[in-house]
């Protein structure tokens, strides 16, 4: 991991018509660390993730991800970011293996990588059934495989543990958890769990940074205040 911070936001804002989805946000995340983002729905969490993933262009301020300034050099960060959002980005009529093969070809990864990930998440049994027949938990596991298929240095996870049972969570922890050693931005509604895995905590409220401090200095009460 190069010494330069993985993410640097200075005065970043994003507008939706006349409403500000993100307003004047400045955050720096050193590489290898985890930023956990708290905040009620509509506070701008998903907007922040999509902005970091170069899917949304900033309407103000500077965004530097993995040393590349967006949106000018957005092609340079493509393929180096793993986004796990509510949409699984999988084609319902194709099987898990076909989906992952498709993503592997898009990211120029060998087919062996797909097989390795299927085994690590114990999906080989259901790998050839159409994705639409899989339960939500299995679907999330396939989505996790798709997220880290191209070994991205930066992970953007939107409530990764939603509808996952403890067994599945244990399975994907080494892949997208802290011990994966990647820089991670995780959105969460669970103050205790979120703070536990965070190096840096960011509280968003109406698109502004209501709370920004290292995880150690933030207590659960401050996080819950965001939701009131």
């Amino acid at each position: 991991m190069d010494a330069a911070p993985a993410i640097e936001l200075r005065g970043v804002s994003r507008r939706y018509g006349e409403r500000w989805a993100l307003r004047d946000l400045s955050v720096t995340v050193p590489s290898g660390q985890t930023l956990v983002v708290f905040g009620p729905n509509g506070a701008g969490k998903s907007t922040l993730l999509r902005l970091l993933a170069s899917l949304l262009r900033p309407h103000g301020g500077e965004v530097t991800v993995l040393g590349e300034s967006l949106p000018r050099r957005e092609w340079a960060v493509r393929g180096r970011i793993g986004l796990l959002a509510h949409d699984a980005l999988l084609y319902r009529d194709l099987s898990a293996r076909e989906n992952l093969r498709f993503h592997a070809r898009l990211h120029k990864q060998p087919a062996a990588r797909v097989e390795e990930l299927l085994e690590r998440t114990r999906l080989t049994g259901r790998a050839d059934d159409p994705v639409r027949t899989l339960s939500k938990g299995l679907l999330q596991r396939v989505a996790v495989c798709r997220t880290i298929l191209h070994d991205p240095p930066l992970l953007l996870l939107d409530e990764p543990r939603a509808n996952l049972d403890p067994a599945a969570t244990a399975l994907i922890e080494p892949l997208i958890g802290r011990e994966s050693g990647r820089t991670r931005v995780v959105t969460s509604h669970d103050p205790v769990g979120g703070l536990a895995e965070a190096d840096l905590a960011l509280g968003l409220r109406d698109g502004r940074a209501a709370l920004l401090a290292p995880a150690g200095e933030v207590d659960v009460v401050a996080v819950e205040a965001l939701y009131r």
Partner: protein
Amino acid sequence: MRSREPRPMRPTWVLLRKDLLLERRAPESVPAMVLFSITTFVLFHFGLGRDEVEGSLAAGVLLVTILFAAILGINRLFVSEQAEGGFDAVLLAPIDRTALFLSKAMALFLFLTLVELVAVPAFAILLLGPSPWDALGGLVVVLALVNGALALVGALVSALAIRTRSRDLIVPMIGLPLLVPALIAASRSCAPLLAEGGASWPAAKWLAVLALYDLVFGLLAYAVFDFLLED
């Protein structure tokens, strides 16, 4: 399972393979277009009150049917992307985004060819007066150019419409007027082919207009397609 490392296929082929696999796995566009075409021939029979058609009338019936069948296909083109939030999958990949446009245009071209393999013989049997055999060569050329126009304009209009609210209205509303020049040139080229006295090669100027149309709208669509995916 293939043992050797897959050659890094150009992104266009990767996307096209996926579209063809999707259509094979859950066929929805091609059968619908085929059935629609044949039903339309029956409607034309009763609508025009004629057992046989030839010359420019035959060209018109065939091409209008293909045009409207294509509208069905165009409407379904990006649905698989939109449904799964699939656009993000392509936008996140380190590929040139116009590969999506090229792959969708090629997919529609192949679907249209498949449909015409069934629809044209059906048309010949049901409605066409003169025998189609000697017209076959010319028909293949004209229909290839028409499929090109439908695929290029269709892919762009479909991408334009897919992320709006009234998407299946926008496609015919914008697509049909845009395709009028292509239809004019195509029907004027097909008319001599299906003429009563025997097929004669279409006038070169109409084929040129059709080719020019494909070229202009192909390049234009290729240039502006990226803007549709940005946010």
